[in-house]
């Protein structure tokens, strides 16, 4: 005799609970945290480098770097002289709340204003796993093509800001910015959008202003 038991629970509820713990920890330390997600090669590490260089005089910044195996990205960031923790995911395709929880005690949270988490380069998996940060940010880049909001909708659904990197090469690619933005607008109406180039610096200021506004409003 079988009977049906109602559950109605998000499938990743355990991760969600741990993400909430991470958030509480960050809130208590008054550290504003962002999670950067993107395909491999979209420019996550370049954006972190640019952001740290521009804001380090005004804000105390730390970085958590998720990578499959190497320490290449973490080495680039650590060279900037800010506290950096590397998380090797051991082949896992995304960071999850447990990994961030393990990384947090390795950072001097009491001495930070901003924490930047660099997720594993992947346009699918990180969308499902909340980390507990305050804002999720997606970096798209021109060479990837303008159809990504149509092919990878989950990633575009859940983020709080979108960067379009490498706009310096727009002329070399058939990238229709209007088509791209139209898809984004359907999936995530009103999403903050920052077209920029980490290489030339064009458009960076709007992004940096957004980050600083977020830190200020978080800290009250």
């Amino acid at each position, binding site marked *: 005799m079988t009977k049906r038991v109602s559950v109605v629970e998000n499938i990743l509820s355990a991760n969600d609970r741990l993400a909430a713990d991470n958030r509480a920890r960050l809130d208590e330390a008054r550290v504003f945290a962002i999670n950067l997600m993107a395909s491999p090669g979209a420019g996550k590490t370049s954006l972190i480098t640019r952001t740290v260089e521009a804001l380090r005089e005004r804000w105390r910044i730390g970085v958590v770097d998720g990578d499959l195996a190497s320490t290449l990205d973490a080495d680039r960031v650590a060279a900037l002289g800010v506290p950096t923790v590397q998380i090797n995911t051991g082949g896992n395709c995304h960071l999850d709340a447990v990994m961030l929880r393990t990384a947090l005690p390795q950072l001097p949270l009491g001495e930070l204003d901003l924490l930047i988490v660099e997720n594993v380069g992947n346009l*699918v998996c990180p969308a499902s796993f909340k980390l507990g940060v305050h804002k999720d940010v997606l970096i798209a880049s021109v060479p990837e093509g303008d159809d990504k909001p149509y*092919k990878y909708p989950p990633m575009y659904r859940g983020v709080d800001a979108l960067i379009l990197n490498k706009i310096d090469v727009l002329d070399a690619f058939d990238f229709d910015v209007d088509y791209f933005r139209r898809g984004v607008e359907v999936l995530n109406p009103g999403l903050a959008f920052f077209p920029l180039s980490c290489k030339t610096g064009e458009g960076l200021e709007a992004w940096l202003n957004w980050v600083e506004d977020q830190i200020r409003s978080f800290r009250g």
Partner: protein
Amino acid sequence: MAEGSVVHELPVTQSLLEIALRHAEAAGAKRIVQLNLVIGQFSSIVDDSVQFYWDIISRGTIAEGARLHFERTPGQLRCVACGEVFSIDGEDYVCPACGSTQVVVVSGDDFRLDSIEVE
């Protein structure tokens, strides 16, 4: 669905097992025979891959051999201009009835274990 989407099914399946066992225990069940999942098209989960991991990790638990029933809710859009509701096709978000690009998402985000069937 997309490249790279096979790997995260393992943690998803582990979470699923944890939730199912917890609810089964609370209900005093001896065996779990079926899990009823509701997964929207905007959630990137491959059914076969979850089933593959499930068969391995459920061994030795009261959920061993349980069926996974996937109810797939389509990613659907609604045209603001004419009210037409249509499914996403992976290429564009344009209303097939009137050609408007003023469309909003109405379904496809589900990602939950709805119920379990137990003995």
